[in-house]
């Protein structure tokens, strides 16, 4: 049977998990790109010029977005678990998502 469970806290949980997973998958790639610098700065350069391309821009936006989502979601969780407040958790979830959007949009605007 299909399970319905779309409520703010659950969405926040899924978002946090998917963003964490996304970051974990991206991280090795990121490290690999940076390691290029070790033996060939030019190759790194060539790669980095790709950042001008819209696709790469979008990917980068996505990554920073993931990081922001995960960061705020993580802070939300830490607050929720470790600070003894409890009631308006939904507001927290919402605020975290809103905050991440804010940051990533700033980034996007800056980058253009």
């Amino acid at each position: 049977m299909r399970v319905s469970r779309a409520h703010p806290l659950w969405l926040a949980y899924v978002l946090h998990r998917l963003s964490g997973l996304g970051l974990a998958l991206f991280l090795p790639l990121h490290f690999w790109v940076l390691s290029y610098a070790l033996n060939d700065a030019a190759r790194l350069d060539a790669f980095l010029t790709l950042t001008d391309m819209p696709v790469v821009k979008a990917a980068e936006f996505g990554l920073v977005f993931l990081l922001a989502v995960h960061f705020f979601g993580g802070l939300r969780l830490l607050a929720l678990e470790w600070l003894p407040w409890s009631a308006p958790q939904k507001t927290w979830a919402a605020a975290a998502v809103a905050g991440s959007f804010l940051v990533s949009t700033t980034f996007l605007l800056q980058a253009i």
Partner: protein
Amino acid sequence: MPGQDQGQDHLTVTVMRGGSDAPQRPEAFQVPAYDNQTVLDVVSWIQQNTDPTLTYRFACRVGMCGSCAMMVNGVPRWTCRTHVNKVLRDGALEVGPLRNLPVIKDLAADMDPFFDKWVAAEGRHHPTRSRDDDIAPIDPAGDDRQAASAGIECINCSICYSACDTVAGNPDYLGPAALQRAWTLFNDAKDDSRDAILDAVSGKGGCHSCHSMGSCTTYCPNDLDPLSAIAGLKRATVKRAFGGRK
């Protein structure tokens, strides 16, 4: 067939059948609609009038025993106190056994794992006094007591347990109700075993496995808040690790 009189409105009800030995399969029924009708009434009507082999469970019929919980249109609910109108989608209902528990037959789930975990979470009182002593005077408004009282009205219906995806993914996870019970006891001035409780909820599948997804709190029919209770346990274990005492 009685009840299926012409002209009366009908509900289309899909019921999950099957169990431990037969695979689950949906079966559709037409059930007459009434003004005051709960999901339990709908299920009962099918068993009493159309299919005598349909299995479900209930006892109190007023939301006190927590025996009648089922999945209703994808959401775990106490069926004896769920008015059909509240959950009907396009005149249809889909009813199944509680999620995250073994199915015995049709709509009756095996609740033993739920209670085994209740016990595993040290979910029982550890006495400091005996029947020969007076009853301890306790300030009902004290902080500890308020925290203990917050979760005390749990009817162990297992709705939160069925709603939680962590339970679904992690068979060791003690689940929201058992952990909430542990938190209640932890705050109970009369309880002797606060350390044992924290130990019990710090192991495999303990409170640290919870991802605060809050489905427990969202769907608890008694408006209890296991999410916050579990957060309380996490806090208490962290405090203890840093040498803090309760």
